[in-house]
């Protein structure tokens, strides 16, 4: 369970009081700490666009993925479907054109630098879920020439589809292959599939880059990320800066892995094995 009932209701109540703004998201992960939420909420609207982490942030959003739970493969499909629907992600036939926010791959490809040919069969066959790592020091935000991708004070690496010029420097810089480019108009397959679109999230246009956004739009409404809502036993989302958060608890108790730590990007996605 990513967040207990009490914690959630309290956060939801605070969000209702605060109105449906970005503030709600911070309340959600910092129950009781309204001063801090004011501060963070404020800087969110201010100049905090530069992607520079303040010393000891009060909110550092992160995801822990309980990979062992994914032996039940239906959960992978459920999570992917939830994300696809929440973000109107098109399905292309060609692998070259794919738009992927969250997807599965094997240990060997997820951790190529620590690949071990004598790995336990159980781990080798597990479907690891890949997504944007929301790095603490994101190379994509460093290279973007227009700050279309940037790190928010809460740690989310966001993408502005309306500012992106489509130079794809971020795709070259991301060591995790987490970014997708709209090579064609994404509305074509959405229309062809006859999918029911989520009116609360924009479809994109061709020529811009996109990726997982930790459901920043849902957090702003006081909701949990779509994947967390779909499988709360697999996706554990919370505030790393709060030692009492659920994610910190589970990271204390279980062995976790992160991708390509040697590059110093400090990923915020943890794999529990």
């Amino acid at each position, binding site marked *: 369970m990513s967040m207990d009932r009490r914690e959630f209701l309290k956060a939801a109540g605070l969000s209702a009081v605060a109105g449906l703004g970005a503030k709600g998201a911070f309340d959600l992960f910092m129950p009781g700490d309204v001063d801090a939420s004011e501060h963070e909420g404020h800087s969110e609207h201010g100049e905090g666009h530069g992607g520079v982490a303040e010393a000891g942030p009060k909110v550092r959003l992160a995801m822990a993925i309980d990979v062992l739970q994914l032996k039940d493969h239906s959960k992978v499909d459920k999570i992917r479907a939830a994300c696809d629907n929440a973000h109107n992600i098109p399905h292309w036939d060609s692998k070259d054109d794919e738009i992927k926010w969250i997807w599965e791959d094997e240990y060997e490809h997820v951790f190529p630098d620590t690949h071990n040919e004598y790995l336990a069969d159980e781990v080798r066959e597990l479907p690891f879920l890949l997504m944007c790592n929301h790095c603490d020091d994101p190379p994509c935000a460093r290279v973007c020439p227009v700050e279309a991708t940037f790190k928010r004070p809460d740690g989310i690496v966001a993408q502005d589809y309306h*500012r992106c010029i489509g130079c794809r420097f971020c795709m070259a810089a991301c060591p995790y292959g987490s970014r997708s480019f709209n090579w064609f108009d994404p509305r074509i397959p959405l229309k062809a599939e006859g999918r029911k679109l989520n009116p609360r999230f924009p479809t994109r246009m061709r020529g811009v880059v996109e990726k997982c956004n930790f459901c920043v739009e849902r957090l702003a409404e006081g909701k949990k990320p779509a994947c967390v809502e779909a499988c709360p036993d697999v996706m554990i989302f919370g505030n790393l800066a709060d030692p009492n958060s659920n994610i910190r608890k589970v990271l204390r108790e279980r062995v976790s892995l992160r991708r390509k730590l040697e590059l110093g990007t400090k990923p915020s996605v943890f794999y529990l094995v």
Partner: protein
Amino acid sequence: MIERALKGSPKYWGWVFFLLAVISVGFMCYLYQLKNGLGITGMSRDISWGVYIAQFTYFVGVAAGAVMLVIPKYLHHYQKYAKIVVFGEFIAIAAVTMCLLFIIVDIGQPMRMLNVLLHPTPHSMLFYDMIVLNGYLAINIIVGYNTLLADKKGLPCPGWVKPFIYLSIPWAISIHTVTAFLYAGVPGRHLWLTAVMAPRFLASAFAAGPSLLIMLLLFVQKVSKFRVDPEAIQSVAKTVCYAMIVNVFLMFMEFFTAYYSHIPGHIAPLEYLFFGLHGHDSLVGFMRFSMLAGFVGIGILLVPALRRQNGWLIAGVASVFIATLIDKGVGLVIGGFIPNPFETITEYSATMPEIMIAISIWAVGALVLTILYKLALSVREEQQIA
């Protein structure tokens, strides 16, 4: 002075209209790309940069090559270069124009291009690349035009142009250094993450730019009365030779570090480019040809008896030009994406419209160069008569 581009032989006009025809075909292809998206190219989620960015990178080098004439002429007063330095500067103008066009055709939302100015981002290397490339274009227009105009009037170069000439020297180094930083500063792409990227870029640039200049100077002597001192051409050829030796030397540094350290991530892209990786080898033929051409070029240019014969000289510099074009204008960019972050392999091959767009940008470069060389030649011919 510009009006001199409008007076030419039927052959001149035939060439201009041929280039315009190529450009218009490429422009149609670009409109098709603009309408449908960059999906009409061979690029993919894994190979997210292709021939456009690779060619961009190569021509930044060609542009920077002009400095190999500016330094001897203006810092060492090597007067044999006095009449040809402007031809180097005009190559730089044409090459930077091509670079800017390659960037424009590569971006997904060209209408938002000016966001780079609207939201200047000093932590992005592309921000600096924009500044240095546009600056270099402006400097070469100022210097090339004004020095030529002074020659036309039979006057010495005006004093106010001098600072721009000196500025052009570090500026030329900067354009290719910053372009190397686009690659050398990103984590997780093993082929690119190397400190010798910028030095190697400069070495190959100082081989490629002057090679092109020699070919063009030999050609313009066939179609005009302008005569270049053969010793000047020999000096440029020696520069090409030394620069290419340094380039190949630095490439062997890359091979040594990768293969002697045995670190798989460092070996993989080189293995892909030169030997094939897990059965994927679409670039192996090109890269081996490039390496062979590099050695042939060095061999020819090193031997004075060969270098002094125009036929061999052309073969030598053409080999160097093609070797660097394949190495930097194809292999470097594609090799950086292979293997991908999941250690799997997606290959790349350019599509017809993509190739047509690239060719039409070459044609734009050739057109700019033709017009500029027409001006320069008319002034030089007058000087020779007088």
